[in-house]
């Protein structure tokens, strides 16, 4: 049992290591609200003679995303649709398309059948922050409208599962080491006490 668990701990830990690094680095950036290179300028281009899918103006939620994808395909813009804003009086749509390390704003003029595409690269640091925050609690009804976001949702959940497995198997492997028990218990207790103190101070 123990050798098998040790091997599983090793392989799962090595596979999860880059994911843990990704989440840890993005924590440091989020806590300090500082993302190097994220303020890049956008480059814009105008596209004309778009074929506007029927029903685009009336569609809502996932149907609206599916219709918008028809336009994005013509523009060569791929990624997760972050949000769609419809301005019916102006017959205009604003679409945010997101990727790790890049985002694109698309302004679609439905009457003129034109689009202004403004793209920028926000870099690798921003990519880690984006992945950390996705899929997240916002715009739940449309989140996961791209293949990569569906895959990332599974991976993000799998990372939690791997971490739980690694910590539980690590606990078991540590508990089997008699020489490390006393010191380990002191560290475990100190960690629990630190967390409890902080949460008590925060929540009150």
């Amino acid at each position, binding site marked *: 049992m123990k050798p098998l668990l040790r091997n599983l701990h*090793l392989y799962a830990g090595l596979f999860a290591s880059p994911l*843990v690094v990704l989440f840890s680095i993005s924590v440091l950036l989020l806590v300090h609200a500082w993302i190097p290179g994220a303020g890049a300028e956008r480059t814009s281009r105008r596209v004309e003679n778009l074929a506007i899918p029927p029903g685009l103006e009336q569609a809502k939620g996932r149907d609206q995303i599916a219709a918008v994808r028809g336009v994005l395909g013509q523009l060569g813009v791929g990624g997760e649709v972050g949000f769609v804003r419809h301005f019916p009086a102006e017959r205009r749509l604003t679409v945010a398309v997101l990727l790790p390390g890049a985002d694109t704003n698309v302004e679609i003029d439905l009457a003129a059948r034109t689009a202004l595409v403004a793209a920028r690269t926000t870099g690798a640091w921003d990519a880690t922050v984006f992945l950390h925050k996705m899929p997240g609690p916002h715009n739940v009804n449309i989140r996961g409208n791209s293949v990569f976001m569906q895959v990332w949702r599974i991976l993000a959940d799998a990372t939690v599962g791997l971490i739980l497995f690694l910590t539980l198997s690590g606990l078991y492997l540590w508990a089997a080491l008699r020489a490390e028990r006393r010191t380990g218990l002191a560290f475990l207790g100190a960690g629990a006490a630190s967390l409890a103190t*902080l949460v008590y101070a925060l*929540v009150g």
Partner: protein
Amino acid sequence: MHSSGEPIAPAAAEIAPSGFPRWNRRLHFHGGLYFLFFTWLFALTGLLLNHSAWEFARFWPDRKVTTSEHALRSPPATASLLEAARDVCRQIGLEGEIEWVTNRPDAQRLEFRVNRPGVQVEIKTDFASGRATVRRTAVNAWGIAHHLHSFTGVRVNDPRRNQRDWIVTTAWALAMDAVAIGLLVVVASGIVMWWCGGGQRRGGAIALGLGTALCAFLVFGLRWWS
């Protein structure tokens, strides 16, 4: 229980290495143990944030909102916005992270929020009439768990450039930094243990390589591929 008196051979894992490998191993164990509960908290609350439709963990529809009015003295005329907000909080008996969400309408009014995990308080003051309206929104334990995950006092791309102004938020932010750095140390020491251990290099390299390739594709490759 062994009663024969024969010496028991220690298991391979209990043959303690010496020198750097020994300290590296202890760093891996003890770092992991110290941050264990923090890691569980952030991992599980991260799962909740990614599945906010889970019915059992809902908190916003069950929030409790109360509104009250308080008599108020005007803060000193020389007080900065933050000092004035702190003075108002002291008078009302509030503690938490001050957040600016609107522009100040005029010198007689001050509007801000005071946040702490689980509680958000909106304060609207009118110094001319000496009154403050306090709207308190409290959420259940699931809401507190959500907020603990993301409670930093600052936000990326915040046009109002809110800064941390409550010492407990600063302590919590430092704890988040410590957990992140601690996990990086646990990861690095784990990789060193694997490499110095000698065995399972090929299998380990495949596992590490797969994870690295996946992350590299997501962070660097996806935007080019799309």
